[in-house]
């Protein structure tokens, strides 16, 4: 906290650095939307017939919203209204499935004449608010199962509804709330488990279930070694067992074609061994009151279940286009003209930008319309092509600065509600940033999700404006009164 308590006017109490980063990003977005539709004709950037002109209107209204939130509303309102707002938006989320219009395979938009509105965007705000309300209650303890279930409910219900709308991208953003929970005392092991689950899923699909299983066993062994305390002896024992297990598939591959060993798959042998070991250690852990041993053994069982169900999830739970996108991303299928088209085109656009870019309005890939959805989900391509690595660097630094600023402000705040809400905002922006830019440069599968503040679209811009400025208002109020 800065030490200057003497002059606490309105101007000083707002985090202007955050607001400037916000303003810079929306202006960058606006200019690049203009560039991305430039080939349609030499229209003015204010022409309302085009997306850039419309975006100008969205920007003006967003600024109006920001001013309204900052100066007209009592920040206390958000905490008290969080539950009704949450339930209201949840109602909209369900209603849109039945009443909405279908856009690109997902039913998540309400249409009022020329204006389309996506409740999923607003749901991020209300979920953040309710999450902050729940987590900031004085008697709340995340380690308690009842409270944990409550939090899971707050996050999980809208997430599932959004999944039902086939808006997988927006649903993925909710995973970001785990970081918030982590900050509020949620065990890091859970983060670790989720990371492991994703790793195993990818390994099972790209390499083979055997490799995936061996990795799982290896990781569990490392955990066991670290937790046991007797580092030296356990390391050697575990290493020896692990090498022996690795040799199993190799040796079985060498067996004679018609022998008994050849007929049983190494996968089942390893699984059998692992399951037996897991039950043995669960029993031992229970007897020795070694909770870690039991839990890690349970983890092993869960991991095996995941590996076996991956095939099922991949082929039966995921939708066709999502499966194809994952296949392309993981390099299982190369398909530059089909599903991989978007990624390929977007990487070409960004890659061709070089260090300094081709210059404003000079991009050939984006202005000639090679990149689909370029003013919305793929706006980053225009940045990459016309402004080069330098432009991308500046944009990413602006985002990082913004998220960093929000987290720093949140940590400074004395109200736990403000702190938790700040973390929610940071997590939302972070998830959007990572998924969106990740997909344009081939780090993530193509999941339709806008780049905050840059992408064209009223719903998205309004939602992020409200999301950010609620935090700015909450933080300002604190500064004002302390």
């Amino acid at each position, binding site marked *: 906290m800065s030490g200057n308590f003497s002059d606490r006017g309105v101007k000083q109490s707002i985090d202007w650095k955050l607001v400037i980063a916000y303003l810079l990003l929306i202006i960058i977005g606006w200019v690049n939307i203009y560039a991305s539709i430039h*080939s349609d004709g030499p229209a003015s950037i204010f022409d309302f017939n085009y997306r850039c002109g419309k975006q100008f209107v969205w920007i003006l209204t967003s600024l109006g919203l920001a001013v309204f939130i900052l100066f007209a509303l009592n920040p206390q309102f958000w905490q008290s209204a969080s539950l009704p707002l949450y339930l209201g938006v949840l109602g909209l989320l369900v209603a849109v499935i039945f009443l909405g219009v279908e856009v690109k395979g997902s039913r998540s938009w309400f249409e009022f004449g020329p204006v389309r509105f996506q409740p999923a965007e607003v749901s991020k705000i209300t979920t953040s608010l309710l999450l902050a309300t729940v987590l900031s209650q004085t008697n709340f303890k995340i380690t308690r199962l009842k409270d944990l279930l409550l939090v899971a409910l707050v996050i999980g219900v809208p997430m599932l509804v959004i999944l039902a709308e086939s808006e997988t991208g927006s649903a993925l953003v909710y995973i970001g709330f785990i*970081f918030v929970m*982590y*900050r509020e005392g949620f065990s890091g092991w859970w983060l670790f488990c989720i990371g492991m689950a994703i790793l195993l899923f990818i390994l099972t699909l790209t390499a083979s279930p055997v490799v995936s299983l061996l990795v799982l066993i290896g990781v569990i062994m490392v955990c066991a070694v670290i937790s046991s305390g007797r580092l030296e002896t356990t390391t050697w024992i575990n290493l020896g067992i692990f090498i022996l297990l690795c040799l199993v598939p190799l040796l079985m591959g060498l067996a004679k074609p018609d022998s008994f060993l050849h007929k049983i798959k190494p996968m089942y042998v390893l699984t059998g061994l692992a399951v037996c070991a897991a039950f043995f250690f669960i029993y031992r852990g229970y007897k020795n009151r070694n909770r870690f041993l039991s839990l890690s053994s349970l983890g092993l069982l869960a991991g095996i279940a995941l590996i076996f169900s991956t095939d099922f999830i991949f082929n039966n739970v995921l939708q066709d286009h999502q499966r194809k996108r994952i296949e392309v991303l993981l390099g299982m299928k190369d398909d530059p003209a089909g599903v991989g088209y978007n990624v*390929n*085109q977007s*990487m*070409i*656009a*960004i*890659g*061709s*930008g*070089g*260090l300094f870019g081709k210059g404003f309005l000079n991009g*050939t*890939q984006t202005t*000639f*319309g*090679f*990149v*689909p959805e370029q003013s919305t989900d793929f706006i980053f391509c225009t940045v*990459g092509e016309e402004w*080069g*690595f330098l432009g*991308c*660097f500046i944009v*990413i*630094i602006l*985002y*990082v600065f913004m*998220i*960093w600023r929000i*987290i720093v402000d949140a940590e400074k705040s004395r109200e736990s509600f403000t702190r938790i809400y700040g973390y929610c905002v940071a997590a939302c922006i*972070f998830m959007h940033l*990572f998924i969106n*830019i*990740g997909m344009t*440069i*081939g*780090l993530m599968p193509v999941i339709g999700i806008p780049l905050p503040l840059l992408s064209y679209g009223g719903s998205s811009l309004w939602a992020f404006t409200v999301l950010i400025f609620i935090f700015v208002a909450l933080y300002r109020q604190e500064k004002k009164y302390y």
Partner: protein
Amino acid sequence: MLIGLVVVAAIILGKLFYIQIIDNKYKINASNNSMVYDIIYPTRGIIYDRNGKIIVSNKVTYDILVTPREVQPFDTLMLASALEVEPSFIKEKMDEYAKNRRKIGYQSVVMLKQIKPETYMKFAELQYNFPGFRGQVRSIRDYPVNAGGNLLGYVSEVDQNYIDNHPGEYRPGDYAGKTGIEAAREKDLRGEKGYHIYLRNSRNQIEQRYKDGEMDKEAVPGHDIVTTIDADLQQYGQQLMRNKVGSLVAIEPKTGEILTLVSSPGVDVSMLADISQHYNEILKDPHKPMFNRAVQAPYPPGSVFKLVNGLIGLQEGTLNTTVAYPCNHGYHFGNHKLGCHGHRSPLRLEEAIMMSCNGYFCYVLKNILENKKYKSIDDALDKWNDYVQSFGFGHKLGSDFPAELGGTLPTSKMYNKRYGKGGWKFTTIISISIGQGEVGVTPLQIANLSATVANRGWYRIPHIVKASEGVEIDPKYYEKQYTMVDTTNFKKVIKGMWRAVNNGKGTGCTAAIAEVKGLDICGKTGTAQNPRGADNSVFICFAPMDDPKIAVAAYVENAGFGATWAAPIASLLIEKYLKGETSRPDLEERVMRGNLMSRVKAYK
């Protein structure tokens, strides 16, 4: 948590750095992506005959292209009548495009190929009614002279296999010569493709010319080819061979230039321009019109091969023109006999050639193979093989005609394998003395024999392309290929050949039918056994005797005696070439009307 943020930002920036600065792959792609190379196809070279007459040229047709995404509802009946197709055809096509709309996307597809300019004009007038439809000019081959499909060859779209075999030269949609002269001289005829570069958007719409056409490359037309073919003679040869199965080849002896090369039945030139339309029809034809008999069919040469054996005998000294051999309706050995027709006996070489005596030539080969000079019959036969090879038999002649075959010649190794070492003697292989048995030669090789005899001992490799401006031919075609037989020995044989034609009817000469007063045609008949029915009729000849201008081989399957069909065909061809017209209308009519197709067993 902040560390995590920085790590993620670093990963993203790292990847960006990699694709924007380090990896060049995406930059190369980017220029491909926005620049569209509109390929300009060069006009294919024209093919001329030896006298400057055009045998193959180009003509304009139109393809009708459709861009299904741009098509709006239209009057099917009006379009059908403009394009002269059934309305159901258009309906079918549009249904097909609708079914494949995802695959087609914004591309154009060919709906109708090679429509006539008149039809296109009708369509062009109404085109504004049919958005999404347009015509595209295409140049196809035109054949003013019916010079035969097997000789000229056809041009068709390259398939993947062809592209793979010619790396870097072709792209899908290109055309290439596949057979005949078109294939032999593909590199000269095709020219160089050019391109115009345009900038386009992802909907495949052209936006503008790249750098105002500065980087464009114009197409370079293909080289014209002058062939050695005489178009009139070729056409006349086609007429003579109509409704017969076999080949007719004429060579200018001094140069080795092929004047005429007919393979009958052949692919009609009217089918050549659009061969793919007729492909099934051609494949189904039981007489295999695509099979170029003139260069690919290994036939037994029959009695014309006696000339070769006679020449070898003379050169080896085992045959003397003054010695006469008896023939009592053939050559008798043990209980067997190699039969001969009735004629006076005994005979000397000249008369033996004139009358085509089988018995005489059995002695000729017997003396060659049982020559004391050689340790065994093996050595003698291999020496004989060397001699025959020097006449251009038993291996590919090396003509510039694609897919030429070399035929077969027996060797001692072959007989040893079949009969065991020492298990065979002259009488075992007696049939090769009269050009039967293991001897297999192509009509081109027989014609080359005729030219070799006409030249008295040497030949130039037969070829179909002449050197002309910008087109070179292999220097080997200028070199004389000498046989292992001396010129003086050829003179002795030629006398017999002259008498075979000009000795006068009733004197026992076999080819009196080929005689033309004043032309001094020298010839030799052949009647080769054909396991698939009646004998093949064979005749070789050249004229005039003292200054040969043309050497001919006619080979007609299942046509009987050499004198019945092959001799008049060859004789008429020579007369036409040397005199410009023929003087024997009755004979000409008999030949042209003759239909021997029913005698030929069809291939299944």
